[in-house]
C-alpha cells in the first residue's frame, strides 16, 4: 500500500491510501469532532461538524474530514477561526432542534455556541442518519427510515418491521446523539400491536380494554 505524506496542524503525518483526514488525524492523536460518523458504517458526511480547512497546492478549501480522502502533500488545519465559526453555527442550529442533547452541549461549550441563538424548534432529530444507516447497513432490517423532505424531514419506524425486529434489538438507541430516536420508537410502539394484547374490536382510546358489551 502506498504511503501518503501530509501535514495536519503542523505535524507530519504518514497515512495510507484510502484513509480519510479523520483517520489520519487519529493516528497522531488529533481529535476532530464528529456526530454522524460511525466506524462500522459507510461514509456519510451529513452533519459537517468535522469540517476542516485543507490546502491543496496553495488553495484553501473547507471539507468534511470524515469523508475527504488523504492526498499527497495536503495541508490540513483542524482548528482555525473559520472552522470554529462553522462548527459554532452548526451547533447552534442543531441546538435549536435538540437543546438538551448532551453531546451537543459538550461541543457547544468547546466552540462557544449559544444554545438560544435560534428560535427553538424541538424536533430533537439532527438528521445524523446513524439509526437509519445502522439498521440498514449492519442489521439489514430497514426498520427505520427517513420520510418527507427539507425542514419536514424526519425519521420514522415502519411499524410492520419494527414490531418484528425492534423488541430484541434496539441497538440503534445508544447511537442517537439526541432523544429523537427513542421518542419516535415510543410513537411507533403505540401503533404496534402488543404481542400478548387481547384482540379487541373496540378502537376507542379509553381504558375499557376493548371488551364491548360488558355490563349494561
Amino acid at each position, binding site marked *: 500500500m502506498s504511503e501518503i505524506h501530509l501535514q495536519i496542524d503542523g505535524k507530519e503525518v504518514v497515512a495510507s491510501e484510502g484513509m480519510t483526514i479523520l483517520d489520519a488525524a487519529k493516528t497522531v492523536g488529533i481529535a476532530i469532532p464528529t456526530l454522524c460518523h460511525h466506524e462500522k458504517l459507510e461514509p456519510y458526511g451529513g452533519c459537517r461538524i468535522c469540517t476542516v480547512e485543507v490546502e491543496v497546492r496553495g488553495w484553501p478549501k473547507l471539507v468534511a474530514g470524515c469523508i475527504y480522502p488523504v492526498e499527497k502533500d495536503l495541508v490540513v488545519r483542524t482548528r482555525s477561526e473559520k472552522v470554529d465559526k462553522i462548527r459554532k453555527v452548526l451547533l447552534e442550529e442543531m441546538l435549536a432542534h435538540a437543546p438538551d442533547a448532551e453531546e451537543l452541549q459538550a461541543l457547544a461549550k468547546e466552540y462557544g455556541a449559544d444554545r438560544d441563538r435560534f428560535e427553538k424548534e424541538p424536533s430533537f432529530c439532527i438528521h445524523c442518519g446513524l439509526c*437509519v444507516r445502522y439498521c440498514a447497513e449492519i442489521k439489514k432490517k*430497514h*426498520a*427505520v*427510515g427517513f*420520510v*418527507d*423532505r427539507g425542514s419536514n424531514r424526519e425519521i420514522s419506524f*415502519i411499524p410492520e418491521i419494527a414490531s418484528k425486529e425492534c423488541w430484541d434489538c434496539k441497538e440503534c438507541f445508544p447511537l442517537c446523539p439526541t432523544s429523537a430516536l427513542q421518542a419516535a420508537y415510543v410513537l411507533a410502539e403505540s401503533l404496534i400491536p402488543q404481542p400478548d394484547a387481547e384482540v379487541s374490536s373496540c378502537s376507542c382510546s379509553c381504558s375499557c380494554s376493548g371488551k364491548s358489551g360488558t355490563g349494561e
Partner: protein
Amino acid sequence: MDIAKIDQIIENHNGEESSLIQILLDIQSEYHWLPKEALARVGERLQVPMSRIQQIASFYKAFSLVPKGRHEVHVCVGTACHVRGAQRVLDTVQDITGIGPGETDAELKFSVETVNCLGCCALGPVMEVDGKHHGNIAPSQIASVLNNCE
C-alpha cells in the same frame, strides 16, 4: 385495488429495481395515489426495503400517500399569475369544488393544489387541470372547465 394490475406495471418495467421511481409514477397515475398494499407488493417484487420506498414516496411531490381526486387542479400562484389575478382564480375554484389547496373532496372527484409558476407566465393567470393548461382564464371559463370533468 387489483394486485394483478400492480404486477402488470412492475412487469412493464421488467421488475427492475432501478425502475422503482418509474413504477411508482405509473401506480400514481393509475390510482392517483400510492396505496399501501401496492407499495408492499413493489417492495416484495423488487426486493427494495419499505423504508426506501417510503423515503422516495414522501420526498417527491408527484407522489401522494393519501387518496387523491380523479382530477388534479393546479392553480398557479407564482409572481406573474399572482399579479394577474391568481387569487380570484383560486377563489372561484374553491367556490366550485368546495375545497381549498391541499384538499380532496369526499367524492374523490377533485384535488386542488397551488403551484409556484408553471413556466408560462405570459399566459397568466394559469390553471392546470389533469396536465392541461388553461391560460388567461376567466371565472366563467373556470366553471365550464371544471363542470366538464366527470
